[in-house]
């Protein structure tokens, strides 16, 4: 297992480096001069030159990239162009709420996706299967910001079951925290549970046709046991693939959901920073989100290897 993990990490290094280059180049291409923005209103040319030198902007582009990369790796993401605060601090404050939302979204997606996928896969062609399929198509086609708005109208404004905006931290009471998390997480799940459900349904149908399941059924094992021990175990591997796919959706989706529910996470920080042309914050958020996304993709791959020994073998060879 050790060499497999190491190999997967080494494989992703060039991709991470290229992704960081793209983010760095993006900031260079963005309109406006960061030194002028940091210098405040009516700066003298000497002030701007001094800031340029301090930021390393007077050096060559490759030198600037290495300088930036070295700082970023040590946790220094520069200063906000708008309020001069360290970007790592601004980003650090927002990571918690976003991770909380993404994990809750993933959890709900898995719960809804697994139960509906199982129900549909065990009785293909039935009314349940058709209903699941219809709702899955609808869920995939609905924009997250719209399902969020609809949930607010129904469960927030009309029924008053859940707060319509904002986040309550877990330190202020678990019940209230879960209540504030419920609608945003459900919004994420509406778009992502269908992916899990479809993968599970199809893999259950495949697994039920395989020889070992047919043998188990022909020797008279109760259906419940066949499903639990023979069908489900093999059908769960594609679900890990589906979870890998929805990771990217979750990361992008949180940005939209955070705006709808005024959730104080990285997504709302990013959108505000774009509005203020605060490109160093934009860059900082991008670095953190892409790093998080890549790390979780690697985790999914490792989980894949844990569940299916054949994948480890292939990677050894």
């Amino acid at each position: 297992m050790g060499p497999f993990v190491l190999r997967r990490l080494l494989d992703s290094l060039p991709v991470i480096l290229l992704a960081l280059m793209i983010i760095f180049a993006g900031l260079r291409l963005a309109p406006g001069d960061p030194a002028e923005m940091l210098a405040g209103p009516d700066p003298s040319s000497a002030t701007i030159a001094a800031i340029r030198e301090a930021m390393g902007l007077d050096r060559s582009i490759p030198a600037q990239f290495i300088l930036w990369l070295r700082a970023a790796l040590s946790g220094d993401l520069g200063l906000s162009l708008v309020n001069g605060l360290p970007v790592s601090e601004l980003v650090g404050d927002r990571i918690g709420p976003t991770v909380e939302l993404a994990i809750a979204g993933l959890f709900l997606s898995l719960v809804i996706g697994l139960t509906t996928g199982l129900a549909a896969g065990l009785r293909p062609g039935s009314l349940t299967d058709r209903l699941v399929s219809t709702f899955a198509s609808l869920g995939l086609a609905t924009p997250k910001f719209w399902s969020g708005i609809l949930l607010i109208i129904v469960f927030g404004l009309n029924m008053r079951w859940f707060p319509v905006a904002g986040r309550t931290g877990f330190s202020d009471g678990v019940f209230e925290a879960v209540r504030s998390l419920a609608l945003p997480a459900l919004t994420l799940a509406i778009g992502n549970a269908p992916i899990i459900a479809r993968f599970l349904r199809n893999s259950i149908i495949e697994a039920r046709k395989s020889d070992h399941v047919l043998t188990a059924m022909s020797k008279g094992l109760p259906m419940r046991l066949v499903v639990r021990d023979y069908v489900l175990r093999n059908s769960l591997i594609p679900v890990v693939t589906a979870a890998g796919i929805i990771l990217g959706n979750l990361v992008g989706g949180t940005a939209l959901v955070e705006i709808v529910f005024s959730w104080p996470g990285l997504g709302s920080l990013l959108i505000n920073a774009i509005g203020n042309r605060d490109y160093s914050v934009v860059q900082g958020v991008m670095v953190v989100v892409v790093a998080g996304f890549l790390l979780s993709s690697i985790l999914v791959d490792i989980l894949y290897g844990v569940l299916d020994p054949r994948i480890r073998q292939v990677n050894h060879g």
Partner: protein
Amino acid sequence: MAEATNADDYATEIRPKADWLLRLACMFLLVCFLLAVFAHILPLYGYSTMGPARLAAPSSAHLFGTDQFGRDILARVVFGIRTSLWVAAIGVATSTAIGMPMGLMAGLLGGATEAVFMRILDALLAFPALLLAIGISAVLGSGATSAALALGIVGVPQMARIVRGAVLAEKSNQYVDAARAIGVSNGMIMLRHILPNVAAPAIVQAALYFSVAILTEASLSFLGLGVQVPLPSLGSMLYEARQFMSLAPWYAIVPGTAITLLVLAMNMLADALRDRLDPIQ
């Protein structure tokens, strides 16, 4: 496609989409397309014409009600559909124009070209799609053109990978070896022999990406990064409607339904195309 006789057979084949549903989806897309093309000559209010009735409920004068400036929501949705289809179409065209040659060259030439192209695509795939679109729009500035370009770039990796995969499968066929043996150049092999055979998966990918592009354009506009005022877009209408959820719920329901139906219909069309053109996938 014939209906299967029992439940298990039914499930094992690609589920046949009910034909009438597919026809309905195609008709809906056709109506949207016609609305988009002829929006300016239809007997509608102007999309930025303000009226005295603000946040008015649906009535015979305003079929879908009015917004906070008294503008007709029907007119804005029709022009919003036009924006959505237009931006998504340019996005899909751009991603095909860049991704297809990349995939063709990577698959056919192999070696260093393939290695370099694939690393670039991997790096683009390291960004969650919506985040990449947001980042590109941030750099290019908001507006329809930059949104379309962002959609174009975001779609490149998928298109290039699918075309490369199809080329690799096609390249190993004997007729390509034969062409090469009689001295046909790489460019000619690509144009005359391989391109016609990878067209089907590319068309299917373009159709699938069209619905993703509609959703992403709406998301960018919702975040204020897409089409700018006074031009209406379904996404930006929803952003504005958000503030009037309790006063005028129809304001959010109409554009949201329009996006969902557009994406749903496009997904159905793409699935049907895939079943017919590309049975291997």
